[in-house]
């Protein structure tokens, strides 16, 4: 199809599809009139059952924890896929950061950036850690915390050199951490099966005080492993992309 043919065919289809979609959307109960019952029930029982004040985390890591298992493995597979697709191939060679294509050199890092990165890395690690460990109480959890932990590592790159970054996170080690994070989640679930409960049952004591860091049973534990997995997955993905951008050059081609 030529571009204009495609555009007309698309427009014809899209008008029909949007009309069809609106027909369905207008059958909804209207904004602000959530009909329940799923969320309303969970809102009522989650605090009592899990002692976790963060209901969304209680759903993610407990009521619908099985979804999150799948979700973690989607990220795990994506990171593995990035490694496969971007692995070094025949005909590609690694070069030092100095390259014949002068305009592709990373500009030298200024002291200001170094300083800023240095100042931010510490707080980011703390913040990532805090978010990961407070899934059961606050709007936070392993995913958000993991991403922020990964960001801290990326800042290390910004501050210094990619090679330092590489030393911080050798691919094999990051891979292992990622696998431990993802596998640990599955293992927590399997431990429940081991003691005769349904898979992923929240079998740890839920704590005395609602909203305490030690509340929520397996929720903070799962959140910790998710945090590990997510941080490692994003470090791996960014590291592979950085390696592509900075180190690998096409060989003879």
């Amino acid at each position: 199809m030529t571009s204009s043919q495609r555009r007309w065919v698309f427009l014809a289809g899209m008008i029909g599809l949007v009309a069809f979609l609106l027909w369905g959307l207008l059958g909804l109960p209207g904004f602000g009139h959530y009909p329940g019952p799923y969320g309303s029930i969970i809102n009522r029982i989650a605090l009592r059952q899990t002692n976790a004040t963060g209901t969304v985390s209680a759903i993610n890591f407990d009521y619908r924890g099985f979804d999150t298992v799948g979700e973690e493995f989607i990220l795990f597979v994506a990171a593995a896929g990035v490694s496969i697709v971007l692995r070094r191939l025949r005909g590609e060679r690694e070069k030092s950061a100095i390259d014949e294509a002068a305009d592709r050199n990373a500009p030298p890092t200024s002291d200001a950036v170094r300083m800023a990165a240095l100042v931010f890395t510490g707080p980011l690690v703390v913040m990532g850690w805090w978010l990961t460990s407070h899934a059961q109480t606050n709007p936070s959890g392993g995913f958000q915390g993991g991403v922020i932990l990964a960001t801290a590592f990326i800042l290390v790159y910004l501050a210094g050199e990619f090679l330092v970054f590489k030393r911080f996170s050798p691919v094999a080690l990051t891979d292992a951490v990622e696998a431990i994070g993802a596998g640990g989640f599955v293992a927590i679930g399997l431990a429940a099966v081991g003691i005769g409960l349904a898979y992923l049952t929240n079998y740890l004591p839920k704590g005395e005080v609602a909203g305490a860091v030690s509340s929520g049973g397996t929720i903070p534990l799962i959140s910790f492993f998710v945090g590990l997995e997510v941080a490692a997955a994003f470090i791996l993905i960014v590291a592979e992309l950085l390696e592509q951008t900075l180190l690998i050059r096409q060989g003879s081609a």
Partner: protein
Amino acid sequence: MQYFPFVVVAWILAVGLYGIVTSRHLVHLIMCLIVVQSSTYVLLLGVGYVTGAVAPYYFDITVHTPAVDPVVQALALTDVVVEAAVTSLLLAFAIQAHKRFGTLDPQELASLKG
């Protein structure tokens, strides 16, 4: 206001698909795919909203306070992770495509492939 958020959902979806269909650059196309997916977040959170209710966190309110639906928020979170994962993988494909074909135009990619 009754249905405005849902009309916005349809708009975002349509615009994103339009972008994919007319795109001549893979990275642009992938960003349009992100837009398509973002319509699902708006839809999910839109259907779970309760007028006048608060966020579902119970550290300083009682259990009987009306709160919005926490389930759709959990679903949207899952969705965001899927987005990040799929986008990273697609971008890796795009990098490799650029190495093999020297272009990121999907139409040129198809004709170069034979």
